[in-house]
């Protein structure tokens, strides 16, 4: 038990000295994860929609060429950014650009480069999620829209995407939580997020494990709160499950319909035998 007491004492020591820096790091982590996820979703949405524009053999060559080109470009983007670590992507963007352009082009804001890297990385994952979301919607929905004369874009905007987006909300939440944790690699280019606060604190105090404990608890707190909030948003979006049924459907099993089961039998209210039968009882 005294080990735990020691750990607690160390944590208190760390928190009194570096508490502000930890909290600042948490704030930056959350902002970066949030902005990166939102922008990444937008990128993913655009890619997913462009990826699913239908074309047939009857379309002209130029249109078919462009649609195929778009698919190839998106495919390359997804494979490259999904297939390489974000920590290296950050290094490539931050150090690669000035290296190749002889310092002519470089990111001056560490915030900007971090947001760009996280967004592009998230976008690569979301592009596939959105594509999956779109193709998972029943083909009948598109056919229903086509049959009343709606164009591809109209049915996308009003019918398919609202349903697809609802279906991929768990994926978006997933990506946000992954981003909360994975933005920790941004310390590599000096972004002041939560994990870099740990590195700074450890560098000065040598309390490596106690600081790591602070980090663990801090990350778990952030992700748990995010999970609860995301669930709440999902429930809100689905709306109330209660629905008051209106019981004034004139056609469902009322007399006079095409094949009412009692039609022409003594149980038919319109028949004379019905009245007679009532008198007997």
């Amino acid at each position, binding site marked *: 038990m005294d080990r735990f007491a020691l750990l607690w004492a160390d944590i208190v020591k760390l928190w009194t000295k570096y508490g502000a820096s930890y909290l600042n790091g948490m704030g930056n982590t959350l902002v970066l994860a949030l902005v990166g996820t939102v922008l990444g979703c937008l990128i993913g949405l655009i890619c997913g929609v462009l990826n699913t524009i239908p074309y*047939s053999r*009857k379309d002209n060559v130029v249109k078919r060429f462009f649609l195929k080109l778009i698919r190839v470009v998106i495919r390359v983007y997804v494979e490259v950014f999904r297939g390489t670590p974000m920590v290296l992507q950050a290094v490539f963007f931050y150090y690669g650009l000035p290296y190749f352009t002889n310092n002519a082009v470089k990111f001056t804001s560490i915030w900007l480069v971090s947001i760009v890297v996280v967004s592009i990385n998230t976008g690569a994952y979301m592009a596939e999620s959105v594509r999956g979301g779109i193709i998972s919607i*029943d083909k*009948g*929905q598109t*056919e*229903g*829209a*086509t*049959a*009343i*004369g*709606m*164009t591809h874009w*109209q049915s996308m905007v*009003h*019918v398919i995407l*609202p*349903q697809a987006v*609802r279906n991929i909300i768990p994926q978006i939440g997933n990506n946000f939580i992954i981003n909360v944790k994975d933005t920790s690699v941004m310390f590599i280019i000096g972004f002041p997020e939560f994990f870099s606060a740990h590195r700074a604190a450890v560098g000065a105090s040598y309390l490596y494990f106690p600081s790591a404990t602070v980090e663990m608890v801090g990350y778990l707190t952030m992700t748990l709160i995010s999970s609860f909030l995301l669930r709440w948003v999902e429930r809100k979006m689905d709306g109330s499950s209660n*629905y008051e*049924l*209106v019981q*004034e*459907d*004139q*056609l*469902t*099993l009322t007399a006079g*319909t*095409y*094949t*009412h*089961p009692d039609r022409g039998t003594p149980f038919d209210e319109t028949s004379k035998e019905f009245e007679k039968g009532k008198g007997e009882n």
Partner: protein
Amino acid sequence: MGDSLLQVRHLSKSFGSHEVLKDIDFTVDTGEVICIIGSSGSGKSTLLRCINFLEQPTKGEILYHGKNAETEWKRTLYHSKVGMVFQSFNLFSNHNVMENCVLGQMQVLKIKRAEAEKRAIQYLEKVGMAAYRKARPAQLSGGQKQRVAIARALCMEPEILLFDEPTSALDPEMVGEVLSVMQDLASGGMTMLIVTHEMSFARDVASRVLFMDGGVILEDSKPSDLFTAPKMPRTQEFLKRVLSRQL
């Protein structure tokens, strides 16, 4: 040929090497109610889907008001004139009943919301679903969904309605309510082309019945003739099997 609304000429459709429709030829006049019957795989549904281009015909042409539907009609306008009701309803599941009925009017016909809602109520009342305008498709029974789907098609004020087995996905006790709506439409003068397995409905309501088999129209006659004195042996065999079960 002045009053013929829709002409199907030499229509063929193949899926790969499988030829589903073989050189189909027929004409629909304004006000006709045509039922298409036949066994599964005979090409009935494919024929309807080719007529409103949900499937691209392999060969042949479709004339609408004497003009080629593929080249001389704007596709979205053609779709709004030639309505379709599906076996699986295909209501927009993210919209409520009212939105299902106004979306097409507002997007395709560019009608203002107030007017679109007025028209929607009018047709929802016709199918007995006006009280359900706030309900979502998931909260409706199959028969109710299909009636809303019919109202949605009617909202576009089409000149012809195509029904692709409108009652095949319904519980037996819900078939009646849908057929009753369709019967009302027929007596109101709507031109209809109906793929169905409801033989008694075809016999009572249709002005013409087409019997399809193996991708061709084998018989095309009045229901009174076709059901009492079918000419082709294949038709006789089909009717014997189906009617013995249904009636």
